[in-house]
């Protein structure tokens, strides 16, 4: 590119205000935050949020394929961590409804500046670093409008080297996004798909969803246990030019992620970690005498997206248990009177209603 052309591009970026304010729509796009776990094996039987914050493994029809979902330090320069998906059990008899998507879901209220559905809908660009080990080189990235069942897709052929890839997404003048805390858009990296989603022609322009046009041309990561998909530095920004990855501080990124998932362990200790209830009890539940009830209140560090699903862990790491002080684990009958900001629980536990219980708290308000 000539100097004049570089200056012209820079001028375009500045004119579009791409360098001002927060640019990246992704949460945890550089895989800094791993509250749940940094390594999970044997995945593939069901969908879920397993490791990196905000990144979901979405599973279609039942597949024999299994995979691990791990943090990796083998990353492009300037990134601490990336995500790696490694096939551990193959699936060479692919049923029609199968798929494996690594995806992130977005609230409509965070996407209004895309101006989707208006005559001034904005062009956006999605960029990411990726590489592949093995033969499943072709992936499909899909941007899906959940409010209007519309989508646009692009196929990428990866190599064994880290490369930054780009997906220019034209403004869509059809279908506005709801301005609320519900799921309005989803960005998916498809790594495996059955014929239900591959029988047509890939939707490379915005169109009403047609399942047969979603993942056309994708290779299956489940074709070999040698296949590994590596992903880092994912960014989605308004504008027609990709800008350098927007690095946020760890604390900033963690706080953003805690809108969707939060636990009372210290960072680095996932749910189920043992703790000493004498001096490191994450929360304390107090019995209320003769009423046979316990009560517990806590304030979340940030307002959660929705009233969260709640679970407790005993000090020995057992799920769905609270621990009587100095005594045994107890099941509990909880009543969640929480809001998006405050946990308010009462417990029908009570074999020892005048005593203390301890537990770790896990809250989930993911999309």
């Amino acid at each position, binding site marked *: 590119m000539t100097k004049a052309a570089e200056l012209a591009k820079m001028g375009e970026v500045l004119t579009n205000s791409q360098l001002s304010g927060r640019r990246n729509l992704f949460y945890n796009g550089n895989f800094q935050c791993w509250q749940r776990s940094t390594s999970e094996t044997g995945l593939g039987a069901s969908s879920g949020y397993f490791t990196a914050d905000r990144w979901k493994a979405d599973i279609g029809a039942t597949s024999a394929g299994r995979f691990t979902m791990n943090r990796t330090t083998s990353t492009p320069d300037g990134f601490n961590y990336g995500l790696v998906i490694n096939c551990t059990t193959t699936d060479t008899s692919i049923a029609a409804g199968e798929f494996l998507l690594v995806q992130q879901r977005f609230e409509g209220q965070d996407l209004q500046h895309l101006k989707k559905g208006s005559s001034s809908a904005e062009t956006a660009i999605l960029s990411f670093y990726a590489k592949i080990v093995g033969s499943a080189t072709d992936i499909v990235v899909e941007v899906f409008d959940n409010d209007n069942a519309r989508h646009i897709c692009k196929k990428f052929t990866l190599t064994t080297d880290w490369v930054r890839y780009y997906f220019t997404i034209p403004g869509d003048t059809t279908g506005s996004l709801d301005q609320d805390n519900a799921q309005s858009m989803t960005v998916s990296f498809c790594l495996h798909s059955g014929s239900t989603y591959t029988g047509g022609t890939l939707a490379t322009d915005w169109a009403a969803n047609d399942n047969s046009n979603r993942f056309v041309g994708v290779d299956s990561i489940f074709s070999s246990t040698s296949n590994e998909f590596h992903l880092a530095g994912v960014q989605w920004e308004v504008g027609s030019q990709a800008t350098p990855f927007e690095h946020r501080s760890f604390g900033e990124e963690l706080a953003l992620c805690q809108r969707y998932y939060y636990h009372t362990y210290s960072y680095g200790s996932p749910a189920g970690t043992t703790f000493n209830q004498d001096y490191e009890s994450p929360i304390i539940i107090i019995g209320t005498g003769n009423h046979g009830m316990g009560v517990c209140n806590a304030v979340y560090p940030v307002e959660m997206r929705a009233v969260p*699903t709640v*679970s407790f862990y005993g000090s020995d790491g057992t799920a769905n248990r609270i621990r009587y002080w100095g005594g045994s684990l107890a099941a509990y009958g909880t009543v969640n009177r929480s809001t998006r900001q405050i946990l308010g629980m009462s417990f029908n536990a009570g074999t020892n209603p005048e005593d203390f219980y301890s537990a770790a708290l896990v809250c989930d308000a993911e999309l």
Partner: protein
Amino acid sequence: MNEEIVGYMKMRKEDGSFFESSIRAKIQVGDTTELGIDIPCDPANRHYQEYLEWVAEGNTIEEAD
């Protein structure tokens, strides 16, 4: 929070009535079931949305003793 949910249960107050603010998931633990995650009755909560889909399929929530 990725437990295998096999059903749902209403929780009872001291006075015998049922709480309206949340329900408990029933999960499979070996050969038995036990109470798992506590799900608020918030339409924006994804676990509650899954519960509503489960009900729409013709299933019925259990009532705690």
